[in-house]
């Protein structure tokens, strides 16, 4: 990830350096074990030659606190694509990788992911200026965070409201985001299976090591060659562990963008929501105007209870009508204000959101291209190791 220069990052360095297990009682008074992560911040001055870097400020936080921060950001900046957190539970694991949240490897990868999250926020032109974020990094007490609730409408995945005139760009973006989610999920699943199989191939070669060693004991001329070739087979079998660990970093980079699709979708939904509010307000206004017209002309176009009752029980008096008319006028004026407001809100949302979306698109293309390059680097490393091992083995066989 390329860190953009922001005022915050010019001032301070942010790291998540360690992870520790803690035990404590949770909200339902049950004993639980969880992991906390150490957030280190220090002033971003260049250290003079031979000088010691400044002692960092540190504080420990657990994953759920990061979740609260993110929720706060989601609510406060609905038009921004909020960076995702690393996964809550390990998904797309190939069988040797643990799905246990307390497993050291998982914890380590989560630590990296959390650091990445903080750096993403810290390098965002808008988010990096947030005061709460700053406090999250530097102060322990964060009661305010708990108070923020995400709009329940946003949580529902199915479209419960219909928008008549959404901005077409958002519709296209939502579709792209959904398709990207599907494609990346599929890719990660297959990659995990490929990793699994590759692991099997390498590990089976370990058996050669064992058998060659045993065999070499009964041979005269062939013994040495077999024995040393066997050692190389063991090396080959062992080499896959590091290779796949490196590849896991690539998978994490891709996974980040899988989670980003949720954030993008969320922004699109918020647009729909604000558009919906606008349309509702406009509809409401139109209805009131209609009512006024009917009241003024006496022509009932729309069925209303008032209209029915006045038909049945007789027309109301002129006075009553004028009171009602005045009330409607008032309501209409308010309605017009509301529509104006909503319209402005909507337009502002579209403008700011689209700005962030353009920024995001650029970031995405850059990051993913880098990820693909790093994948190629892992493959190259694997090939080089393979060449070396098998060349060595060949030499040993030649001595048979």
């Amino acid at each position, binding site marked *: 990830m390329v860190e953009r220069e922001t005022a915050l990052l010019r001032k301070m360095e942010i790291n998540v350096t360690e992870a520790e297990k803690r035990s404590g009682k949770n909200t339902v008074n049950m004993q639980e074990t969880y992991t906390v992560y150490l957030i280190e911040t220090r002033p971003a001055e260049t250290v003079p030659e031979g000088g010691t870097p400044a002692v960092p400020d540190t504080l420990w936080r657990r994953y759920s606190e990061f979740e609260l921060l993110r929720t706060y950001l989601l609510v406060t900046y609905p038009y921004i694509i909020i960076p995702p957190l690393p996964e809550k539970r390990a998904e797309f694991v190939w069988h*040797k990788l*643990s799905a*246990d949240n*307390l*497993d*050291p*490897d998982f914890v380590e990868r989560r630590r990296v992911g959390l650091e990445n999250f903080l750096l993403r926020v810290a390098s965002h032109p808008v988010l990096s200026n947030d005061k709460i974020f700053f406090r999250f990094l530097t102060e322990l007490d964060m009661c305010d965070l708990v108070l923020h609730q995400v709009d329940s409408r946003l949580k529902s995945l199915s479209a419960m409201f219909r928008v008549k005139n959404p901005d077409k760009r958002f519709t296209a973006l939502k579709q792209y985001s959904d398709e*990207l989610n599907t*494609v990346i999920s*599929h*890719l990660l699943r*297959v990659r995990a*299976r*490929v990793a*699994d*199989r590759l692991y*099997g*191939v390498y*590990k*089976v070669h*370990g*058996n*050669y090591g*064992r*058998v*060659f060693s*045993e*065999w070499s*004991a*009964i*041979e*005269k001329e*062939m*013994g040495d060659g077999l024995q040393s*070739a066997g050692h190389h087979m063991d090396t080959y079998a062992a080499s896959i*562990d590091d290779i796949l*660990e490196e590849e896991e970093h690539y998978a994490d980079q891709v996974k980040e963008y899988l989670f980003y699709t949720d954030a993008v979708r969320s922004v699109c939904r918020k647009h729909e929501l604000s558009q919906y509010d606008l349309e509702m307000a406009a509809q409401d206004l139109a209805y009131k105007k209609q009512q006024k017209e009917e009241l003024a002309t006496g022509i009932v176009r729309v069925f209303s209870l008032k209209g029915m009752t006045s038909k049945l029980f007789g027309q109301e008096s002129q006075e009553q009508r004028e009171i009602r008319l005045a009330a409607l006028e008032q309501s209409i004026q308010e309605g017009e204000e509301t529509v104006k407001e909503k319209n402005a809100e909507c337009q502002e949302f579209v403008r700011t959101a689209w700005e962030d979306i353009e920024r995001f698109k650029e970031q995405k*293309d850059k990051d*993913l*291209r880098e990820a*693909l*390059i790093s*994948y*190629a*680097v892992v*493959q*190259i*490393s694997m*090939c*080089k*190791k*393979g*060449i070396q091992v*098998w*060349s060595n*083995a*060949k030499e040993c*066989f*030649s001595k*048979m």
Partner: protein
Amino acid sequence: MSEHTVPADLSGHMLDLDEDEDLEVFSKSTSLADGSSMPNSPSSMVNQYRLEEDDEEQQNGNTKDIFITVDNPESHVTAIETFIMYRVLTKTTRSEFDSCEYEVHRRYQDFLWLRSKLEENYPTLIIHPLPEKFVMKGMVERFSNDFIETRRKALHRFLNKISEHPILSYNQHFKVFLTAQELAPHRKQSAGFLSRMGETVRAVANSVRGLSSRPEEFTLMQEYLENFSNKICSVNKVTQRVIKEQREYLDELKQYSPTYVQWAGLEGELAEPLKDVASCVERCSKETEEQIQHLSQVLLPILHEYVLCGETLKAVMRRRDNIQAEFEAKNETLASKKADKEAMQVEVDGLADRVEMANNALKGDWSHWQNSMRTDLKSAFISTAEKNVEYYEKCLAVWELFLLSQRVEPRKELDEEDVS
């Protein structure tokens, strides 16, 4: 949960190869067959010169005077059966042959006949095994192209092994096999059946009696054989497993490349690098396919042949034991006889000679076989290692090209890290 990085649970991948855990390990320092201490019995003298020849020189082709190929498998259909005929081409400068070129057609049964005649004539020589009659494993079709090709190659190797053998290659039956247009009349002539019966009966009788003492060198040979058989079977099993795992890996790899293409379809700027990665993965899967083929066609058949060799050798040891047992039985009878000793003495002396001949033949052939085994396996392993190096080199090139296309320099620091 473990505290280590990746749980070292290899149990799923380590094969259960050993059935006999407490096999005696044969010591490397004992020399088995030096071939130098050969008594002066007449028949062994004749062959002594040839046995001490450097076999590797023979295989170089410097002294090779006979060249045989087996090719052209053709299906023959008769009213009763369908079978494959192979063409056997012989080119030779040997004076025993009337012509210098022969072309005949033989079927699998003919090879079986040849081998059994050779075994009959030289019970204690190590005769290369033939490919199996029928392979159950893998449900291979009897007439599938792969099966026929594998068999053809094995038959080719068989004839060449015979032709390279200092004694066997001068056998009459071998010559007839290579030269006669019609083999059937020659097959009918041999009284093989009856003598084989006799041998089996005698063998059973002798095994019941047991050997009084086996010369130590043959005991050691037997021990080595047991171990060798065991190990070569294991190597064979491991190789089969490697091929299986590779095939499963390839299957997944084939599904992997399309996911990148799918993704590319959604993107703008990113489409090109994604498609490039897809094609890299595809290239690598093609190379994997070739690598699997090489294993199946080069390493596995040789390993299989030496598994069969193990069985052959055990049979040879048994036959040698029987010859010795027969002599010992008659010798005992002679010792307990009171009168008419002269006639039996001649018989016993004859059997004693036979034992000596058998032992010498085996001893001499043993080192020939060991060299042959070493050469064959060495070259198969080298070839496999070479193929693997080639595989990785090709894949390396593919990915480096991708990096170049992204206008990224393959970083030098990374090279130094990887070498360690």
